């Protein structure tokens, strides 16, 4: 840094092209001059007042004249404020300035001081909006990564929880934290994740979703990285031997690795009786199958494989389709499209207008289209079953994957009927089985099969029996609970 105060200020002004939110406040204490530099939007004026200005006015009011060296010492040691850092060059200066510190630049001195005066720019801890549950904790992450870290530290109170920070993004300088339990984690997994994070060279990271896509080991539609807004789930993942990636300004935390079966588990599952959970998980599996297969099955059965349904149902289908002008596939794709448009617009619309869309959708989809003879009533039922089954999952990411595969199945059913569906089913399983999440097989514990880990998949055994961690995720600390 320069010795001359004004030259330093001019440099900052030039570098920032006179940005209007950069504020400069020159103060003279007896013979010494100093200047406070801060960015108005991200600093708290209360803190600047309390920490810096009050200390300065104390000097002025009491007419204490300090020598220059003592003045710097005074600021370093006496001024309140939990974080006061010494700055030697402009890189440091900008780093602190942009993080909400107030910089004190002295005249005739190469060292400046950064006093932490960050303003609180986030909402408080709210209830989860996406992953809701009836029982269990109701807190969720927000955009402040310190709060987020705090929510985890609050839950794991040993020094086995390690937080490793990386700065990613040339412009955004986003802090990315890697969290893991040092006594459980498999070292190779950690290495893999760290090295793939190191490879990222990008101008900016705005959300954990950016990182998720960049480090993902699979390009398929099914996600290999789960993201959650719930601290309790994150803690559970950490204790299970997973690595969590927490990104500044993002309320979603990434859990790595993720298995296919993880998407069938809901936050609720941890806090209810295991027998009831088994029932709900089987319902979810059925819903998953229904959501992918129902339209394809309907198409196959009505256009190729008439022999596959009972006679009375066949008559019913035929009667309903009697006056519909389109082939079954056009009908199915059209209705799916309308539903997807409705869903998408319902998500984007402000809440106040959501009900209007609901009413419109119900009338257009449910009644008017049937009365007008454009679609058959059975098609409405098929699409409704599909849609409702698809929405049983709390992860939007898997709902989208299902939607994509549903269309693939529909195409195969249109062209080849039931054999086409079987062909597509093989393809589906092949693709899922060949996927991996950071080297861990995606379909574990089904492929490769491990009977010991079946106890918490589509069924959930009594918690008394869930003693072991997933052997893929830990080498050293296999036992979770001693009997």
């Amino acid at each position: 840094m320069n010795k001359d105060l004004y030259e330093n200020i001019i440099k900052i002004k030039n570098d920032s092209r006179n940005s209007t939110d950069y504020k400069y406040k020159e103060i003279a204490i007896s013979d010494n001059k100093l200047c406070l530099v801060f960015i108005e939007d991200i600093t708290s004026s209360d803190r600047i007042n309390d920490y810096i200005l009050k200390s300065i006015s104390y000097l002025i009011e009491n007419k204490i004249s300090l020598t220059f060296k003592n003045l710097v010492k005074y600021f370093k040691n006496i001024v309140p404020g939990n974080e006061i850092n010494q700055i030697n060059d402009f890189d440091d200066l900008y780093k602190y300035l942009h993080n909400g510190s107030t910089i004190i630049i002295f005249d005739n001195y190469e060292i400046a001081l950064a006093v932490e005066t960050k303003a609180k720019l986030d909402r408080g801890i709210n209830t989860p909006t996406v992953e809701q549950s009836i029982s269990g904790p109701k807190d969720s992450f927000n955009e402040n990564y310190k709060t987020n870290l705090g929510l985890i530290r609050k839950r794991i109170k040993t020094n086995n929880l390690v937080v490793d920070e990386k700065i990613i993004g040339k412009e955004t300088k986003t802090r990315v934290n890697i969290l893991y339990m040092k006594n459980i984690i498999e070292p190779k997994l950690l290495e893999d994740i760290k090295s793939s994070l190191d490879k990222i060279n990008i101008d900016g990271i705005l959300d954990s979703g950016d990182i998720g896509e960049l480090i993902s080991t699979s390009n398929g539609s099914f996600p290999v990285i789960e993201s959650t807004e719930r601290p309790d789930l994150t803690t559970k993942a950490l204790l299970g031997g997973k690595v969590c990636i927490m990104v500044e300004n993002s309320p979603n935390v990434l859990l790595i690795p993720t298995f296919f079966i993880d998407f069938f588990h809901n936050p609720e599952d941890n806090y209810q009786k295991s027998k009831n959970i088994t029932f709900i998980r089987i319902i979810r599996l059925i819903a998953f199958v229904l959501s992918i297969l129902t339209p394809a099955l309907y198409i196959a059965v009505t256009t190729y494989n008439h022999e596959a349904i009972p006679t009375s149902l066949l008559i019913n289908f035929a009667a309903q389709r009697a006056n519909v002008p389109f082939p079954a596939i056009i009908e199915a794709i059209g209705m799916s499209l309308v539903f997807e448009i409705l869903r998408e617009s319902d998500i984007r619309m402000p809440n106040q207008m959501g009900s209007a869309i609901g009413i419109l959708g119900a009338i257009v989809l449910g009644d008017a289209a049937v009365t007008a003879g454009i679609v058959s009533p059975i098609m409405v039922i098929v699409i409704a079953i599909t849609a409702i089954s698809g929405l049983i999952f709390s992860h939007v990411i898997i709902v989208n994957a299902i939607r994509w595969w549903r269309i693939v199945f529909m195409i195969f059913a249109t062209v080849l009927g039931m054999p086409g569906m079987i062909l597509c089913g093989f393809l589906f399983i092949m693709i899922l089985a060949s996927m991996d999440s950071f080297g861990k097989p995606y379909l574990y514990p089904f492929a490769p099969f491990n009977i010991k880990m079946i106890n918490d998949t589509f069924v959930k055994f009594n918690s008394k029996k869930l003693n072991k961690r997933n052997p893929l995720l830990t080498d050293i600390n296999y036992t979770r609970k001693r009997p």
Partner: protein
Amino acid sequence: MKKLFLLIIAVLTLTGCYDYQELNDLAIASAIGIDYIDEKYVVTVQIMNLEKSGEKENQSSALFKTEGNSIAEALKNFSISYPKQLYIGHIELMVMGKELINKDIEPVLEYFLRDPDQILEFYVIASDTNTAYEILNQKDETEDFASKGLVSSIETSSKQNGTITPVEFEELISLYLQKGINPVISNIYLEKKEVDKNEEKNALDIYNTIHLNNLLVLNDNKLYKKLTKKESIAYNIINNNLENIMIPSKYKDNDLVVRLTDIKTKLELKINNNKLNTEIKVQATGEIVDISKETFNKNDEFLNQISKIMSKEINTYITDIFDFCKNENIDILGLKQQIYQKYNKDYKKYKDKNIYSLTTKNIDSNIKVYNSGNTYYSVDRRKK
């Protein structure tokens, strides 16, 4: 992902949607009747007529008759008279007319067995006095489709009455192909009702009533003989086809009806030193349904007496069907089949012989009448 796209493109471009058929372009048949008239196959198809009138769907059926030199040709000729493509994959009933069953049924079995679209689980019935068209042309007021009524009649009648056997096409084929057994199918016929001239004209609608009665024995591709009621019941008892059956009898000159349940029959043929012996064991429990006048005390002795009477009665039933087989030299009980399965080397020896005249029979009926059923005190007794 590339592979997936390649596969989708291949599937889309190479297959050409073979076999694509929209459901509403099909004429779905619910029943089929086959006749053989003047050296031509006449096929009667009952089509489900699906008309949507406003909110309510109206389901009715229509009959169409086509003919050709073969069954395939006849079915193909259907398109001449009907705008939609005929779909017979879901038929529930097949009726064989009198001429067909007296000539040769093999072409029918052949055609339906080899048709890949065909579900083979439909009932087959035949008529020895009427054409299939006449049978299917009967209106049934209780059901939307006449065939539905017939199907449920077959099912209930076989359970309650015991004189017919519901034979599905698949079973018929399997019986037809097995060695050493003659298949049977149920008989259906129309009975002419005496029409009172004073009645209104619409009485003509119920001019005929459908009867499902007795079994027809097939031999060498065609009808051989019709069984009597008693023989039909005996056939079903031996083949364990009955859930329960009412057997009428006499107890000290009074009418007696016993319902037999849990009927278990075992028919076993044994060859010892070239001597054939057939053992038939019938086990059943029974309850008295009707006994005219109260001539008994409800005690064990009385029930034993009834049990003995019933056992004797069943013996006569079985003797009847044995005698029938013996006299007509046919094998509907499958004794030759038992030889074929158990004593395969001897099969050739007995193949062309009347096996029922060679074998001795040993009938052991064990009917246990365990209570008096639903009979309460009689009117006679209440008077006192």
